[in-house]
């Protein structure tokens, strides 16, 4: 029963994506809407990303110092470990899990409300491909802006760690900065960016799918929003494993 339902849902998702990825009715309108979505989904997420990153960066640095505090391990290891954790996991997977809550619920509730208030029916009756008109700008806008959020997240997390070094006596600033630069592997940055692009697609497409197929009223919109966030979080974790296996091994 669960397998049948899952397959049916996946089939519906594929058909939905086919409608989403068709040629826009009006390129000018599509580009304008994409810019609007970049502002709404991407730029409006910057404050959240900065706040979370600076604190998590600081916490990672403190925990690294406390856990690897040994005379056998060089002090710069704290900076190195903080950098690798931020590059490999925090700036993409954890950040996207957090954004799945903010952006995913925003998308699912917006599209779900449009469905229950017949705005999507209005688009369909006008002869507009509503899935393409509403969803494609969200996907492209968020996917395009995601690298900016990742880079901001990395930079701010390092600043958080720097704050710990500068304002506490846990680790000397020079050792922290040296650790950030030591044994640097450029691929880790690309690996994080590639993962974040996939996660951005998962967040926007999954939340849009749940919002688009809402039936009923406000209660169902809330449920769709929750389902969208939960499903995209699970898929992010699943694809985290798959992509890590593919890209790092």
């Amino acid at each position, binding site marked *: 029963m669960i397998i049948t339902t899952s397959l049916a849902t996946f089939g519906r998702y594929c058909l939905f994506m086919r409608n989403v990825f068709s040629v826009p009715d009006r390129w000018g309108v599509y580009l304008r809407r994409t810019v609007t979505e970049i502002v709404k989904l991407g730029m409006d997420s910057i404050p959240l990303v900065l706040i979370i990153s600076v604190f998590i960066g600081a916490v990672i640095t403190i925990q690294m110092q406390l856990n690897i505090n040994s005379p056998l391990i060089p002090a710069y290891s704290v900076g190195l470990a903080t950098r690798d954790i931020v590059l490999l996991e925090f700036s993409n997977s954890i950040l996207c899990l957090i954004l799945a809550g903010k952006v995913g619920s925003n998308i699912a509730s917006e599209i779900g409300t*449009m469905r229950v208030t017949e705005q999507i029916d209005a688009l369909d009756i006008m*002869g507009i491909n509503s899935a393409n008109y509403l969803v494609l700008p969200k996907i492209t806008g968020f996917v395009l802006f995601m690298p900016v959020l990742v880079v901001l997240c990395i930079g701010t997390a390092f600043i958080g760690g720097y704050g710990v070094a500068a304002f506490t006596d846990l680790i000397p600033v020079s050792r922290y900065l040296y650790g950030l630069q030591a044994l640097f592997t450029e691929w880790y940055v690309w690996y994080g960016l590639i993962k974040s692009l996939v996660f951005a697609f998962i967040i926007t497409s999954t939340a849009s799918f749940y919002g688009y197929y809402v039936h009923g009223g406000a209660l169902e919109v809330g449920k769709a929003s929750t389902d969208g966030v939960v499903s995209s979080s699970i898929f992010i974790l699943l694809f985290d494993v798959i992509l890590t296996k593919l890209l790092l091994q």
Partner: protein
Amino acid sequence: MIEVKNLIKSFDGRTVLHDLSATFYTGKTNLIIGQSGSGKTVLMKSLVGLLRPDSGEILFDGRNLPDMGRTEIRNLRKEIGMLFQGSALFDSETVLGNVMFPLTMFTNQRYADMKKRAMFCLERVNLTGAESKYPSEISGGMQKRVAIARAIALNPKYLFCDEPNSGLDPRTSILIDELLSDITHEYGITTVINTHDMNSVLGIGENIIFINKGYREWVGDMSKIYNTGNKALNDFVFATRLFQQVREYVASHETTVPPRDAR
């Protein structure tokens, strides 16, 4: 003109529309009436292509909707205006943005020309001055009028209205009815209105189709409705004491209620 021939639609083995045939005339206000659950919303959704009938024909000036491909349906829909029960205005757009929306999507006009046309439509529905407001900032009646302006922006050949008076006070309902009737006659549109409102039935019903339990039970105009012998129709239209008294008055004085234009 829209002709419906032998339309059958069922859901999970339960037939909602039984071999239904009807004609909706150009330049007339065509009303679909019936009790809740009678199948009128299913008929309306089938007419606009949101539901696919099991069998039967829906002819838009000879073009059969169920036989059309995706592209043909999309082209046909550009000739259709629709007024939804809840107005279905786009929350993120202003009143002007809502009315300009179909023009932006389907014409290559310059912005100034589109704005001119949108302002004309807003003026036609007596809504000048509200163009910069958002849907949440205007009343339900004004939202309906914006939706009408949006529906006529592309000069549609067919206008569908799903319960245009629901949630409105009687006076605003009459204004919306008058507006729909005027627009229908002025532009020669085939207007199909799905309604429960007996004021609309007796005020603008030039071609009334009464549906009962999925069957077309009665067809006529508002002048014939007072003297119909159809029990189901009488029970539906003259359900309230007020309308019963109106019917009794009309019968006892051997008169008719004049159409709206003649009042």
